[in-house]
């Protein structure tokens, strides 16, 4: 009880918003918060010797501070390396996810292999926030995890982390048909890989591949427009309502500065007519 009360003084809010527990990568990085003043010595004592309640309290407050409390990352990392109860481990993962510091990826990585689903799933989500090569390595391993939720998070996370080196692993995981690999591949692929992805049309269920098409067509770079025209025509040839919906969405979301040929191709395809396959401005 005494320790709990003491803990309230450890973290002093100085600036910046509390970081919401959103497990998706933010579209736009928030303005860097000013660091919170932390009594690291006391925090270390609590994390190392506190009761479960005390530790959870401390971690909850750190989580609430988000990146502002990133100075506490080494201590929370240490807790993860030592291991703790299920509740504490999950709270610690939430905390380092909130900090978003790359140094946490290494201690978080083994938890993706934990036997308890809630821990391994939290760890996978955390790695998407902590980023870095260790996170990418662990998420690539996560594509082969027996837990489909971990696989989904890993596939989406690799796309979010722009892990182009993971495209082949993502292709390997396509057979799973439960993951989010197609969209990530679409975001990361080079032209040859993108063509390979489109080669799965007709082989894998359309609804599984569907999230990748708009991403491919709207890719701002990395995929030549002539390839995109082929993809549009490929979807036209399917002549299904689902394919038509994809083309309509792409047309609606097409940036104003996009190649007019793309707009024309989408409109032509939506009328059911073949797309002219020639590149140009």
């Amino acid at each position, binding site marked *: 009880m005494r320790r709990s009360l003491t803990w309230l003084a450890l973290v002093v809010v100085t600036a910046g918003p509390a970081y919401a527990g959103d497990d998706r990568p933010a579209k736009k990085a928030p303005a860097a918060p000013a660091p919170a003043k932390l009594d690291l010595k006391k925090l270390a004592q609590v994390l190392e010797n506190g009761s479960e309640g005390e530790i959870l309290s401390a971690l909850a407050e750190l989580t609430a501070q988000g990146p502002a409390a990133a100075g506490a990352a080494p201590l929370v990392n240490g807790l993860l390396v030592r*291991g703790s*109860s299920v509740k*504490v*481990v999950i709270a610690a993962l939430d905390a380092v996810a909130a900090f978003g510091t790359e140094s946490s990826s290494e201690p978080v990585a083994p938890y993706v292999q*934990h*036997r*308890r689903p809630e*821990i391994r799933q939290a760890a996978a989500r955390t790695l998407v926030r902590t980023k870095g090569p260790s996170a990418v390595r662990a998420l690539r391993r996560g594509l082969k995890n*027996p837990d489909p939720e971990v696989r989904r998070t890993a596939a989406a996370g690799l796309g979010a982390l722009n892990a182009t080196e993971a495209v082949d692993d993502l292709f390997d995981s396509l057979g799973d048909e439960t993951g989010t690999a197609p969209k990530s591949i679409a975001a990361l692929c080079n032209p040859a890989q993108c063509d390979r992805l489109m080669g799965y049309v007709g082989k894998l269920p359309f609804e599984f591949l569907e999230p990748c098409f708009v991403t491919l067509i709207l890719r701002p770079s990395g995929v030549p427009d002539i390839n995109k025209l082929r993809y549009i025509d490929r979807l036209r040839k399917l002549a299904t309502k689902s394919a038509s919906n994809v083309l309509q969405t792409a047309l609606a979301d097409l940036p104003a500065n996009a190649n007019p040929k793309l707009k024309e191709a989408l409109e032509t395809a939506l009328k059911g007519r073949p797309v002219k396959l020639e590149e140009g401005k």
Partner: protein
Amino acid sequence: MRRLLWLLAPLWSIACASTPVGPAFNTEWQNDQGASMIEIERQLRGTPPPPAFDVVVGLTADGIVGLPLDGGQRWSYPKTSDSPPVIAGELVLFSSNGELFALDARSGKLLWEIGIPGHRLRGAGDDGKLTVASLGSLEPGEDWLVTVDRSGSVKEKLSSEKPLGRPAARGGLAFVPWSGQYVSVIDMNTGAERGRLLTRELVSHALTVGGEIYFGEKGVLHLDERIRYASTQQANRASFAERELPGKPKWLEPGESLPELDMGARAKTRIYATPKFSEKTRFASDRFISTYFQALMAFDAGSGELSWARAVPADILGGDAASSGFVVCLINGKVLRFDAEGGEAGSLDLGTHLRGCVVEASTLNIPKGEALPPKAAQLSTAITTLGPDMATAQLFLLAELGKLEDASVTKTLIEVAMSSRMAPSVRNEARRLLASRKNGAEFMLAALEAPFDFMSPSKLPAPVGPLADALAAMGERRAAPLLAKHLNDPATAIEDVVRAAKALSVLATTEELPSLRTFFALYRATADDPPLVQAVVSVAQALVKIGGSDGRALVQRAAKDPMTQPDVAAAIGPLVSG
């Protein structure tokens, strides 16, 4: 009270006059200590052996098909049978709706037919001129014994309230087992009982093989000069070693029962053997074969040890032990021939799906076929070829496989344990046997090293636990890094994690310290069931053993940490005390 009726009354007096033992099947008979039988045995020595013909006869939905095993033409006869056909000498007999038919076994030509209202064929014998048939009543009533000549003329027709067994014939005499302990020798021309055998052997079948006559059911007595001692169990006898076999098959079913047309398990789980007293074990090829649907197994008739095993492409409906080798008949109409050692020696085809099949091959010598591989490979192929509904046979074959020292056995056991096609009971047995293997470490290491593809529909994770047990017992240190990898893999089943951790407490080196530390960190406070607690404690032992002062300190600290799971803390405390 047994009662015998002579249906042909005028012959009664002739029969009485010619028999030394009284009316056939009479119960007033006094044991003559084998005197009448030895007289008959002497008499038969001068008679030609009855003809025999090796043939396969199948039942189809439309009729009967036959295929001579000497290369003759396939034949068919458009009449369905209401009982399994009987091959007697050169004849094929079957009953159908109150009629008894005899076909020429070589051509399928109808030789004769007689009315047998209310009865069905049970068994038959033929001496080359006359045929004797035992007929069972469809309703509670009397059994019949008829003798018929080649023109279809009924020479004798006897009836009995007691069920009769399955007869044999030679030299004008019918040998008719009855009441489980008697064989009456009936003159097929007169109906007179010329002799009688009392045995202490259960007897319901009389068999003719290569001119020799045998009586029995579980084992057989040979009709020779020692037959007179049958009542004191000193006659020449042949039986093979009894052992528990898949499906509990029988060789000779109770001969007094009326055989049924059976498409079910009983027809597909049988033993086939042929007595042959010139062989060491008194059985042809010194072996008998046992079938279990698609599994075909041959056993040493003397020791009962498995000689060879095969999986065949379809259920086995019939078969016979040839004079040398074996013939089996499959439900798809294929007829397979094997030499005594199991080598495949060609196949024939009845060309149609079968409802039943009988084979006579007792005079056939099957030439040497394509040799089978060593027994370990035979068993491996058979086990992995059989489908998941063949678990009973697979378990039997696995037990046989486990007896072999060959290192390749380990490989097969791993494959079985990892195959999703196998029934869980089969996989578990393979795991059990793997755990005690003393060789095949290379196969074990390869299995541990191979990545597990959870998306593969056919392959399950490696049997880490049994491999850990075996490799630890072998002191195989190369297993340590592989076991450490599986220790932290959530795809590894918890019972396997426990055994991997225990093996690592023996095999781990400092190379495995990082993996051991990770496991300890992940589970010392989250272990939520006894097996995981046990695994954490084993890992703590390994850390203390190879981790030096750091490892010891890590365990010491965990033992005192209130966050450590209480059972874990209690167990690891003593490891670092003092």
